[in-house]
């Protein structure tokens, strides 16, 4: 569960990079944006608890936690993998119990201000807003590269946090960014 917070932080950071990449001098840096999208995809899988998310990141041996993501540690959260390690073995069922159906995802995205369905943990109020914002954006993603970037166009048009940007099936078919990349 705690590793979902690290994943969430990485998702927020990655989104910020994709946003700021738009205005960069010299045009879209394909290599960097590809790497960011790959990180985003992994973090998203872990965050949403999709099958293969945790399994892609096997439990680390029980070493002292790496001094990474300091904020999370200060908040008392254990680092990535430790919960899984505590469980002894990571089970990778075909269907993760925490996987949300498309309908549930849509509902979560469609309720501004409502916290996404998560195990309860104390988080400061400002992180709630950020979490809600990020969760609704994540739910819009397709798992593909363009789906990732397609979200950006949708998100840009809906600047208020928590607002429904677009429904997943519709955005997938638009793929404005994939067109831009091909033309580029």
């Amino acid at each position, binding site marked *: 569960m705690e590793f979902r917070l*690290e*994943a969430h*932080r*990485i998702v927020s*950071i990655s989104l910020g*990079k994709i946003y700021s990449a738009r205005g960069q*001098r*010299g*045009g879209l*840096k*394909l*290599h*960097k944006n*590809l*790497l960011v999208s*790959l*990180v985003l995809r*992994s*973090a998203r899988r*872990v965050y949403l608890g999709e099958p293969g998310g945790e399994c*892609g*990141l*096997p439990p*680390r*041996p029980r070493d002292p936690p*790496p*001094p*990474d*993501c300091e904020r999370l540690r200060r908040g008392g959260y254990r680092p*990535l993998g430790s919960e899984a390690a505590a469980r002894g073995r990571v089970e990778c069922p075909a269907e993760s119990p925490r996987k949300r159906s498309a309908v549930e995802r849509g509902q979560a995205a469609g309720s501004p201000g409502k916290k996404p369905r998560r195990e309860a943990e104390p988080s400061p109020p400002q992180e709630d807003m950020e979490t809600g914002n990020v969760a609704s954006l994540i739910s819009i993603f397709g798992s*593909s*590269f*363009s*789906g990732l970037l397609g979200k950006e166009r949708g998100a840009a048009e809906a600047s208020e946090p928590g607002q429904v940007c677009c429904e997943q099936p519709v955005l997938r078919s638009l*793929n404005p960014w*994939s067109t831009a*990349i*091909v*033309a*580029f």
Partner: protein
Amino acid sequence: RLSISSDIISTVEFNHTGELLATGDKGGRVVIFQREPESKNEPYNQGEYNVYSTFQSHEPEFDYLKSLEIEEKINKIKWLPQQNAAHSLLSTNDKTIKLWKVTERDKRPEGYNLKDEEGKLKDLSTVTSLQVPVLKPMDLMVEVTPRRIFANGHTYHVNSISVNSDCETYMSADDLRINLWHLAITDRSFNIVDIKPANMEDLTEVITASEFHPHHCNLFVYSSSKGSLRLCDMRASALCDKHSKLFEEPEDPSNRSFFSEIISSVSDVKFSHSGRYMLTRDYLTVKVWDLNMETKPIETYQVHDYLRSKLCSLYENDCIFDKFECAWNGSDSVIMTGAYNNFFRMFDRNTKRDVTLEASRESSKPRAILKPRRVCVGGKRRKDDISVDSLDFTKKILHTAWHPTENIIAIAATNNLYIFQDKVNSEMH
């Protein structure tokens, strides 16, 4: 000293004899340094590099069709092997490669019959005898002229260029394609590698660097963002999408993290002078590969493994995307690469010893000896050690070059160029 971002050095390259050293910067300028010949009169000036020529290679451009600005930053410079009195080099920004010819003029003709000193026509009535014009010495003038402009060959950003050993062709690589050019032909190029997927949604990998084999004009290598190397043979087929050899090391599962893919991306690949080995740099290591073994590198050296636990922060501040270069010495016995805090590292392949040195004004008084540095990661801390947390990540050494035959290295530290010579061990071992 006020630092201007357009001064940031973006590439460094010795020519084939080591007499000349070229640097390119973010502002599109190229500066060429020339080594002073050793003379008995001024023994202390032996072998020092002084500015030989400066010119503006590329200017910022605007692509109106795509509404994109094209940066003037020089990504790479490669020298052509010298074939006459002139020197030639290729310089490239993100889109356009240019061939520059560097010539010297140190004599000029004087004593024309029809023209006077300033070139004006003489009054013929004053001409009473014929003279033969003679060449008289003049102050050295270095002229740089653009001889070829290879434009419109690339949709994506050019990351490398490499001159073939045949001295007639060269290749240029962008994120998804590699083109082969003839040095004399600018309106055509052959596409020899194309990894662009039919659907850009399926993109998983880009080309990060490429180089021709130093001796076999049909072989070249290119590296990918997934950490693999592909050796291609141009004789096998026109389009080299199928590699002859694929060099890839399986990932260590115990090191897996969100950032595994980023840190395995190869930022530079260099053939050894012998042509037998390849050197690659990824975020945390340099690796030596034997062309005869595809399954794993024969040597792996840790550049700054203490950063492995800091990848999340380095992702946040973008440092994880820094592209470090690597270099061989002339005898292929030592390899060098840059790091943070203006540190650079050297690894001796024979003795397995390594050293960390710093390029800074304080440590670089003329004829001072560089003191080895150490980064402490906990445990015993010696005097003058630097702790990992006090490393300055804005001071990065991305570009380094080694003289082809002697122990002279050029280190680019942001907008400063440092040239270090090993006077004691001038000869290669």
